């Protein structure tokens, strides 16, 4: 059997009815797939181009917990009321509703803290929606880190710190007039 070109990394479990997102590991890139109806849109992040990966903690899990817990409480009260009133049909309906709300609530907590993951290259900074949980984001990062380092060459942490410091100080606006940007220089060269 031929080896599969992509290996699954993560997918959104709690968004089955709108756009579904998934992340896949390719030979030389990370693939983000958005599935909407019968269409798939792809975004590729080549390991040689990835400049940084940023993980930002969000309160999405807590918000979802509040919404689901509130709804569950409401339906539990309805279930109790239906059991007291003795309506067999209503009992079954409210019990089914309880299960339908409790299931995503449990899944939401099993998946762990939520986050947003951004991947930056020289030309774009894009969110990878499939990596919506801290656990899967870190797992993916640990998986792609050696691949990125293989593609770009490893850099020691001391060297990285030094370069970051230099980069930050270079971006601080100085009193001098700004130098011609690269595009302007290229245009000058072509004209000459």
């Amino acid at each position: 059997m031929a080896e599969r070109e992509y290996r699954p990394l993560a997918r959104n479990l709690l968004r089955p009815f709108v756009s579904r997102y998934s992340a896949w590991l390719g030979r030389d890139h990370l693939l983000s797939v958005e599935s909407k109806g019968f269409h798939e849109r792809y975004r590729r992040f080549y390991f040689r181009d990835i400049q940084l990966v940023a993980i930002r903690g969000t309160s999405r899990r807590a918000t979802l917990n509040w919404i689901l817990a509130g709804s569950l409480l409401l339906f539990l009260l309805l279930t109790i009321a239906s059991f007291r009133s003795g309506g067999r049909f209503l009992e079954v309906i409210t019990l089914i509703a309880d299960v339908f709300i409790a299931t995503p609530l449990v899944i939401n907590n099993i998946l762990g803290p939520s986050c947003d993951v951004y991947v930056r290259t020289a030309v774009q900074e894009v969110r990878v929606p499939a990596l919506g949980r801290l656990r899967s984001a870190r797992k993916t990062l640990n998986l792609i880190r050696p691949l990125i380092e293989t593609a770009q060459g490893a850099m020691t942490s001391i060297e990285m710190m030094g370069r970051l410091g230099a980069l930050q100080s270079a971006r601080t606006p100085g009193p001098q007039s700004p130098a011609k940007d690269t595009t302007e220089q290229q245009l000058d060269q072509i004209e000459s």
Partner: protein
Amino acid sequence: MLLAAGAVNQATLIPCTACHSPLQIETFPALFRQSQRGELGTAALMDDESTCFNHPAKQAVIPCQNCGRFLCALCDCELGGEHFCPSCLEAGRATRKIKSLENQRTLYDSIALTLAIAPIFTLYFTLVTAPMSLYVAIRHWNAPRSIVHPTRARSILAIILASIQVVGWVSIFVLLYSLYQRRNG
């Protein structure tokens, strides 16, 4: 996003000094790489030198891997380790022959499978949807499938299910016709 240099490449979430959002930032050497300026191509100096197909005055540096034309550094389009001329690159994008240039696909196999499965419970709709499913599955048999699920399993399943439904409907009509013939004959 604003972080002190020491807070980058840490394995934990560290609050941003500006917005206080918990952040973990991993940087890679590409961040410090100077953006490469596009090559313009070198002028050909000798008569017997191979020159670019598009720019006869410039030195050829590589042939196009699709059409074999000699290309100068300006015309050389590198994609995933392969080298193409601009026209092959454009043709490859238009005809979907270069997979890494595709950024979206329509999943005809999923359409066929949905047409075969979804109306089963209503039964009567399958009279229309089963032939539609068969048509979509066969018409788009060679169409590109999902990049991440490239098998024909969905198309095959759709054809099997739709065929069963079509055979079922044909049997019902044959049975009804034979009953009608028996009553009137």
